[in-house]
């Protein structure tokens, strides 16, 4: 029973990572930017949801929608102000800018409201289901299903819709995309809007599930989500999902063996091993540069 429980624990944890990683990988997939500020947009989403629920008394779903909307706008603003100018600069310059933006958001929020944490109010009646003696909470089911639905939705958007095709075209060759009549700026904005809305949603769900939110809460999940995205093959949407779940389960299993202090190390060791055998992640196409 203990092991079944641990597996369930791992999947719940993993679906949180997956949720954040989905937006991460999507933005990466389109503009090849490691958007370190993604974790901070996630934090902003968590706070918006918190103020909406605790301050203005909104219900969970309105709060979720509000957080997604605000984060979408916020994401677009970040892109327009900080990243747009750097489209033709080196990738690493864009990365440093992203780190700068990330610090700015974190400490901007601390400046405005202080560093102390906030506790999410309970929005759902707590329910646990008993499966062969293991407990599954209604919340972890919610997270898992939201992640899966969002993954399918994203996959659909990117591969089946017109805007999705435009995104992929832009990701490969901006000028050629322009020649097709694609508005590159709008397409990139749409990408950021969707990715940031996902981060916002993840923030609210995280808050509901784990209760505690604080201005620096985005750093570690952001990093883990990046790891998850790379693990699955960065830029590949189902990869982010699987990467997140693998990461969650690995961490849980390591803790379950009593090595909880080593769990981050274990996560990274798994990452490195997978990359050594599959240098572009689990789902990544091993695209060798054609000579």
């Amino acid at each position, binding site marked *: 029973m203990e092991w079944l429980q641990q597996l369930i624990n791992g999947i719940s944890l993993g679906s949180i990572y997956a949720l954040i990683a989905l937006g991460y990988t999507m933005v990466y997939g389109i503009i090849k930017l490691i958007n370190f500020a993604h974790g901070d947009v996630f934090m902003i989403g968590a706070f918006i949801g918190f103020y909406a629920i605790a301050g203005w008394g909104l219900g969970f779903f309105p709060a979720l929608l509000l957080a997604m909307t605000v984060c979408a706008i916020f994401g677009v603003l970040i892109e327009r102000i900080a990243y747009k100018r750097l489209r033709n600069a080196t990738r690493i310059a864009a990365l440093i800018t992203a780190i700068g933006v990330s610090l700015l958001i974190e400490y901007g929020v*601390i400046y405005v409201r202080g560093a102390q944490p906030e506790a999410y109010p309970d929005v759902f009646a707590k329910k646990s289901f008993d499966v062969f003696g293991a407990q599954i909470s209604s919340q972890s089911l919610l997270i898992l299903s939201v992640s899966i639905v969002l993954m399918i939705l994203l996959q659909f958007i990117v591969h089946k819709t017109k805007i999705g095709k435009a995104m992929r075209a832009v990701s490969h060759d901006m000028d050629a995309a322009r020649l097709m009549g694609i508005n590159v700026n709008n397409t990139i904005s749409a990408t950021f809007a969707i990715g940031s809305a996902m981060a916002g949603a993840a923030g609210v769900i995280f808050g509901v599930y784990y209760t505690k939110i604080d201005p*620096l809460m985005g750093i570690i999940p952001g990093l883990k989500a990046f790891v998850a995205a790379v693990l699955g093959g960065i830029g590949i949407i189902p990869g982010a999902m699987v990467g997140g779940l693998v990461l969650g389960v690995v961490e849980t299993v390591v803790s379950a063996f009593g090595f909880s202090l080593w769990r*981050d190390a274990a996560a990274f060791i798994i990452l490195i091993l997978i990359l050594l055998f599959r240098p572009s992640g689990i789902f990544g196409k091993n695209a060798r540069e054609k000579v």
Partner: protein
Amino acid sequence: GCNSSKDAGSEGSSSKGGDVIKIGANLELSGPVASYGSGIADGVALAVEEINNAGGVDGKKIEIVKVDNKSDAAEATNGAIKLTSQDKVTAIIGAATSGNTVAQAQIANDNKTILVSPSGTSPTVTVRDDGSVNEYVFRTAFIDPFQGTVAANFALNDLKVKNVAIYADNASDYAKGLAASFKETFEAAGGKIVAQESYVAKDTDFRSTLTRIKAANPEYIFIPGYYEEVGLIVKQAREMGIDVPLMGADGWDSPKLVELAGADALNNTFIINHYSSEDQDETIQKFVKAYGDKYNGKSPDAFNALGYDTVYLLTDAMKRAGTTSDSEKIKDALAATKDLSLITGTITVDENHHLIKSATVLEYVDGKQTFNTKVNP
């Protein structure tokens, strides 16, 4: 926000130097434990404001010179050097963590500048590896072994449990110290530790380790750590059906704990503390009110209270020493502190610059701390 008010202490600051008492605050204002450092800073600011409004010490107003050590030992060292050699402060308050305090200890000694850590609870803050005492370094919190012992005795004698688990924050020497002294006392008295696990600060998911602990069937779990994680641990433990008594120490003390864990989950948990914000004692209530007035109705936590007390500990020594600038005399006065009544307890400084102060065991009942027993050292 509250930031503009944070600097209240430096109102009336002037470059004359003679009529102000410069005190440095070398705190974790950014980085991973920014919330501890800024909590202390808020408490310090309140105390300074009160003292200055009441005319200061010896007619001189206190001016706080803050530096941010980014929760990093190297920056803490830099900050201490800056405060001693540039700003020439009389005393430094900080840092929040033992490690960042140790990083400043030698500088304080070398420059004959007093260093008081509000919340550094490791014995190594004041006592060096070779057993000698850092003459100029003091603290406002009790040291770890004391609380661990109190908790172990309480478990054995009051709760009468035999098989217990320990779940400690491995990223803080505070929690590790508590865990070690708890274990030592508890095992010496014939108790059995059925599971000993650790987590790392900033973790949010404790379910897998709690699942392990649950499988070991403890009758009681000792959880030394800070409220930010403990709140989540208590909540997740209860959700998983762990309903044995849980216990922690002063790191738990914060109104946030109740919000994080939920009042229900906190029933049947115990905490060792310096004081309780629910304590109806007059001075404590006055402090709670003053704090709320200054910071938008917020209720103070242990870091706020310790920051606040640190200023009073310092000014008490200055008054007794009869000087606000002669650090040697102030240091001697600090070392001779005896039965000083502060918010976080009545304290006496011992020869190792450790604090002798009474501890209170409180029980959470429906989200309120209620008095259980008082333990004297």
